């Protein structure tokens, strides 16, 4: 798709689309989220259950997700209970590894850092990349407010909302407009990630800290308890994984070379008719 556009006689201009701040923070985040996800699943495996409320119900029921192994007549099985509904998830959740050497753990070895059970190391990795993630976010917000990235590409305007139906139709037929700013669906997704999911996953993470809870007890009230915060932290993680998958699909669909180039060098081949600015080639 990208190649067709690039070799077509009516080639659009090469525009400088992504600032150095956008590009550097993008790749630092990519690395951070990779390690945060896999070390987070390691931490989750230390107690692979999620609850609603302040505490974990051992003598009462407030779990929404439980991953465990059980012994059956046919040998051990991995089980996942979601809202009271039990599923057999042998091979992935609850029990994984080989038939000869089954591993009884929440998420399988391929999805955790380290691959073996090691909560202490999971925490070391998680908190290092959490700090890097948050500091990078601070840099991104500062730079993007100043250079207009947020105003131009992230904040959703009424005009964008009106353009959503057409944008959905364009996406469904793989017709992409490569402009200077983002399209309505792009804006909505990035707004959701930067202004909802990122703040949520940071604040729910902090709510799990007993130290922070003493300084900011309102966090416990906002999220409905430490265990609810832990559950939200997990749910936001799954939403970010979903975002990542769609993000990659869209990059491939919209022209991976052009998209990757813009996120590495900043230069982007726009659709024909895009107006150029100083220093850009029409």
């Amino acid at each position, binding site marked *: 798709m990208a190649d067709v556009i690039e070799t077509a006689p009516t080639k659009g201009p090469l525009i400088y689309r992504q600032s150095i701040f956008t590009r550097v923070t993008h790749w630092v985040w990519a690395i951070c989220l990779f390690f945060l996800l896999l070390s987070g699943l390691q931490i989750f495996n230390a107690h692979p259950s999620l609850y609603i409320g302040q505490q974990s119900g051992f003598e009462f029921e407030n779990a929404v997700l439980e991953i465990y192994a059980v012994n059956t007549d046919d040998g051990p099985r991995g089980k996942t209970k979601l809202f009271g509904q039990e599923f057999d998830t042998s091979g992935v959740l609850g029990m994984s590894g080989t038939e000869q050497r089954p591993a009884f753990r929440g998420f399988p070895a391929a999805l955790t850092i*380290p691959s073996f059970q090691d909560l202490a190391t999971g925490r070391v990795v998680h908190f290092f990349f959490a700090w890097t993630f948050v500091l990078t976010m601070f840099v991104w917000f500062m730079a993007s407010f100043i250079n207009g990235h947020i105003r131009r590409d992230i904040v959703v305007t009424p005009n964008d909302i009106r353009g959503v139906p057409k944008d959905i139709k364009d996406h469904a037929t793989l017709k992409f407009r490569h402009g200077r700013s983002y399209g309505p669906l792009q804006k909505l997704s990035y707004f959701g990630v930067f202004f909802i999911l990122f703040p949520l996953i940071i604040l729910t993470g902090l709510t799990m800290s007993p130290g922070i*809870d003493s300084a900011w007890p309102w966090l416990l009230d906002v999220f409905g308890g*430490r265990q609810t915060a832990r559950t939200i932290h997990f749910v936001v993680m799954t939403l970010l994984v979903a975002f990542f998958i769609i993000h990659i699909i869209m990059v491939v669909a919209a022209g991976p070379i052009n998209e990757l180039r813009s996120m590495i060098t900043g230069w982007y081949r726009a659709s024909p008719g895009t107006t150029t600015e100083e220093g850009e080639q029409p």
Partner: protein
Amino acid sequence: MSQLQLTRRRFLGVSAASASSLVLAGCEQFDFLGSRDNEVRNVLEMANTLTYKVQRGLIGDQVMAREYSASEIRQGQKPNGSTDPTTPEYKALVANDFADYRLKITGMVEQEVSFSLDELRNMPVRSQITRHDCVEGWSCIAKWTGTPLSGLLDQAKVRPEARFAVYHCFDNIQRSLSGDILYYESSDLVDAYHPQSILSYGLNDEALPIANGAPIRLRIERALGYKQPKFLHTVELVDDLSPFGKGKGGYWEDNGYDWYGGI
């Protein structure tokens, strides 16, 4: 220009390929981070020092952990870690219902002092219904009753050069070829003097059970469960944690966990 484009394109291809191989190869290649003296791991652990410094700066020394209402006690306190120490010293104390137990304050103090369980029960009482957060991820709300550690430290008169309190415990958390490894912990003096840091002898209005650390468990309410030593017998004031255990300030710290434990 076309030359440049080509190399740029090749660069993109190579970086995409290496990024995907990183993911596809699974995570075993990061298992080296598990070895406790790995240099990369040491760099990553600097984030824990940052967390400690930032939280100490952000959170006032006297700021309290949330206390809950009695209706929030919905279950017993879940026992974890050592639940029945087997050292001869401890077994002898249990046999005599802790009548011979003494809690000692030693190290960098003007005068070393010790207290029997009865003496501790006759000191100022504090009860608090707090949430116990285990490093594993679960939480449990219970009522803890005891006397603030600060009162005992004041009686012993902590010397100004003291920087940490080391908490020595009776329980043999681990047995190794060279004998029992006894649980120990430590904290800075902020946590030691915190108003909610109580030497608890009561749990949910009953005597503290053995599974939860009888006769005395120290509560440090703004930290995780492993910072709250059970079966406590000595509080030693020091200016250096390296002589104890493997030198990291606690049994779990010696096994790779962070010393601050407030997150």
